[in-house]
C-alpha cells in the first residue's frame, strides 16, 4: 500500500511542478528562466571542453573556414581544361586518363554530396556516444563524466520531455478540435493562433529548444510564401513558435494524420493526397488560389524537398517559385554541439529520431528572417530559385550546392555525365579537324 501511495504522491508532485513551471508560462509566452540556467551550464561544460584535448589525437589547424569544411583531402578544383593540359597541342594523350582517375578517387574519398546526407562531424566531442565517430580513445575520467551525462539525459530529461510532448500534442489535438467547432470569424482565428502558439511552445520545451530569432521585422506576412532550408520535421515546430503558417504537405496516416486532420479544422492548411502530389500543376494551382486572397496565413514550403544535414543548401525545386507572390526567405541554422537535429530518414524512422532528439542535450538554433524577394523581369523560376537559395546560404553560413537533394535516394541523371563527355570531346577534337594523315 505504501508503495503505491508513494508512487501516487510522486506523480502528483511531478505533474504539479510541470504544470506550474512549464505549461502555464508557455500559455502566456513567458519564460521562468529555468531553461536559460540549464543552457548556461551546458555551454560551460560543452564548449569550454577540457576533455576535448585528451580525447582527440592532435589535429593541425583546420584549412577551411567555418564548420563543415573539415576535409580529409585537399581537392583539386581545377577545371578540365587545366587538369588535362598536355605537353603539346591538345589531342588525346594516354595520360588523359590520369585526370579522370584522380577526380574519381577524390570523389571516393570525399564528395560534396553524400556527406550532406549524414550528420555533421563535430570538432570536439559533446559527450554523446552517437557523435563519437572518429574519436576512439576515451579516458577513464571522460567515461565517468559520460556516465553522469547518460544518467542526466535518460533518467531526468527524457521523462520530463516525454511528458511535455505528450501533453503538448494532446492539448493541440483537443484545442484545435474545439476551436474547429466555431464558425469562421475573427474569434476563431485568434483562438486558433493561441492554441497553435501555446502548444508549439510546449513542444519546443519538450525538446529543450533554445531559439534565437533575428530580424523579426521581416517575419513573413499574410499572403506570402515562406521558404526555408530543411533539416528535420522540427523546422516546422521552430518556425510556428513565432507565428502561424499554412502548412503544405502530404496526408499521412497514424499519429501524423490525426494531427493533420485536427489542424485543418482550426485553420485552413493545404493537405494533398499522395496521388495529387504527383500532379505538379494541380499543386501549383491550389497554392495560387490560396495566396490570391492575400488574407491567408503565409504558406510554408521547403523547396529542397528532403532533409539535408544543415551544413549546406541544396538545389531548390522550382515549383514553389512558380506560384508567384512574395517570397519570404528564412535561414535556419542549428548548433550541432548540443544535439543533432538532422533526420537521416534512410537510417532512422521518425520515432527513433524523436527519441534521439529528446535524449540530446538541447536543440539550439538561429532563425534569420530575410527581406522579401520577388521574381524580377526576365528571370525564370530556376534563376529566381537559385537567387533565393544563395541568399539563404549566405545568411545561414551554409555551403551552396547545385546538387539535387533527391540524390539521397535517386541516381544522378545521365545528362551530367554526358556533359562531361561533351566537354572532353571538344577538347580533343576542337583543336583541329579529323587527322587524315598520321604523324
Amino acid at each position, binding site marked *: 500500500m505504501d508503495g503505491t501511495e508513494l508512487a501516487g504522491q510522486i506523480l502528483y508532485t511531478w505533474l504539479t511542478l510541470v504544470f506550474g513551471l512549464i505549461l502555464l508560462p508557455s500559455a502566456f509566452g513567458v519564460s521562468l528562466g529555468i531553461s536559460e540556467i540549464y543552457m548556461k551550464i551546458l555551454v560551460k561544460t560543452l564548449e569550454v571542453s577540457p576533455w576535448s584535448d585528451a580525447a582527440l*589525437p*592532435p*589535429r*593541425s589547424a583546420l*584549412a577551411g573556414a567555418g564548420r563543415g569544411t573539415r*576535409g*580529409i*583531402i*585537399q581537392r*583539386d578544383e581545377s577545371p578540365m581544361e587545366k587538369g588535362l593540359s598536355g*605537353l603539346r597541342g591538345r*589531342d*588525346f594523350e*594516354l*595520360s*588523359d*586518363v*590520369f*585526370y*579522370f*582517375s*584522380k*577526380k*574519381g*578517387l*577524390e*570523389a*571516393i*574519398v*570525399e*564528395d560534396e*554530396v*553524400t*556527406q550532406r546526407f*549524414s550528420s555533421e562531424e563535430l570538432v570536439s566531442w559533446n559527450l554523446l*556516444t552517437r557523435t*563519437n*565517430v*572518429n574519436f*576512439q*580513445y576515451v579516458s577513464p575520467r571522460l567515461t565517468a563524466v559520460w556516465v553522469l551525462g547518460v544518467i542526466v539525459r535518460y533518467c531526468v530529461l527524457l521523462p520530463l520531455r516525454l511528458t511535455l510532448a505528450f501533453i503538448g500534442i494532446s492539448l493541440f489535438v483537443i484545442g484545435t478540435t474545439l476551436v474547429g467547432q466555431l464558425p469562421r470569424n475573427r474569434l476563431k482565428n485568434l483562438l486558433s493562433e493561441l492554441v497553435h502558439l501555446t502548444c508549439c511552445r510546449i513542444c519546443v520545451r519538450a525538446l529543450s529548444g533554445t531559439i534565437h530569432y533575428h530580424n523579426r521585422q521581416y517575419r513573413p506576412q499574410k499572403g506570402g510564401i515562406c521558404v526555408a532550408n530543411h533539416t528535420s520535421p522540427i523546422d516546422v515546430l521552430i518556425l510556428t513558435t513565432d507565428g502561424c503558417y499554412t502548412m503544405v504537405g502530404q496526408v499521412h496516416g497514424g499519429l501524423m494524420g490525426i494531427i493533420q486532420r485536427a489542424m485543418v479544422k482550426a485553420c485552413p492548411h493545404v493537405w494533398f493526397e499522395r496521388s495529387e502530389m504527383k500532379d505538379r500543376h494541380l499543386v501549383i494551382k491550389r497554392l495560387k488560389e490560396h495566396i490570391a486572397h492575400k488574407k491567408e496565413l503565409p504558406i510554408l514550403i521547403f523547396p529542397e524537398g528532403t532533409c539535408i544535414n544543415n551544413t549546406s543548401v541544396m538545389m531548390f525545386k522550382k515549383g514553389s517559385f512558380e506560384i508567384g507572390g512574395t517570397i519570404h526567405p528564412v535561414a535556419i541554422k542549428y548548433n550541432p554541439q548540443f544535439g543533432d537535429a538532422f533526420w537521416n530518414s534512410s537510417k532512422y524512422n521518425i520515432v527513433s529520431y524523436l527519441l534521439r532528439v529528446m535524449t540530446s542535450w538541447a536543440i539550439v538554433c538561429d532563425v534569420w528572417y530575410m527581406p522579401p524577394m520577388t521574381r524580377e523581369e526576365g528571370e525564370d523560376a530556376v534563376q529566381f530559385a537559385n537567387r533565393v537559395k544563395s541568399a539563404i546560404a549566405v545568411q545561414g553560413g551554409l555551403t551552396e550546392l547545385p546538387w539535387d537533394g533527391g*540524390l539521397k535516394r535517386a*541516381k*544522378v541523371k545521365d545528362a*551530367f*555525365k*554526358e*556533359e*562531361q*563527355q*561533351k566537354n*572532353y*570531346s*571538344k577538347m*580533343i*577534337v576542337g583543336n583541329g579537324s*579529323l*587527322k587524315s594523315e*598520321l*604523324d
Partner: protein
Amino acid sequence: MGSRASTLLRDEELEEIKKETGSASGFLLHELGEDNYQNSLSHPSTREVSHSQITRLYSRFTSLDKGENGTLSREDFQRIPELAINPLGDRIINAFFPEGEDQVNFRGFMRTLAHFRPIEDNEKSKDVNGPEPLNSRSNKLHFAFRLYDLDKDDKISRDELLQVLRMMVGVNISDEQLGSIADRTIQEADQDGDSAISFTEFVKVLEKVDVEQKMSIRFLH
C-alpha cells in the same frame, strides 16, 4: 559502447594497414604507446598515412557501406554522384575489386587508395630491401595502365583503347575519328610492332609526364 565497438578499427588491423600502405614507422604506435606516438607524429619523417587519416578513411568507408557488412559493393560506389558522372567511373570502380570478386573490404579499399598518396622525397631512400611502395611512380603508372587494359592481358589492344576512348567521349565523336585517334596513339607508342601497347611502351610514352603530381591526392593533416 554498444554496436559501434564492433565496427571500430581494431588495433591489429590498423597495424597491418599501416605496414601495407607504406608506413615503416607504423609499429611505433604499438611500441611507444598512445602519448609518445602522438609526439612522433609531428616529426617530419612520419609523413605517411597517419592514425587519424586511417580513422577518417575508415569512417568514410563505413558511411559508404550501406549494407553494413564491412565490405563495399559496386552499387555502394555508384551511389557517389560525383563518381557516377565521371566518364571513367566504371573503370575506376573496377580497380578496387580483385579478379572475379564483388566485394571489397577496408584493406582492399586502402590498398587502392594508397596508389594516390604523394611520393615524398624521404620515402625514396627508405626501406630499399622492402617491397616497392604502392605509390611509387611505377605503381601509379600501372594503375593507369590497368584502366585501359580491359582483359588484363598486360597489353592495350586497339579495341581496348577504342572502348576506353568511347567511354570518355560519349556520343560526340564518330567511329572513324575515334578509330584514327586510336591508331595514331598506338603507332606513336608501339615499338615492338605488335599493334598493342605493353606496359614498358606505356611507361616510355609517359616518361616526361609529371605522374607524381597528376596522380596524387594531398591529404590534409
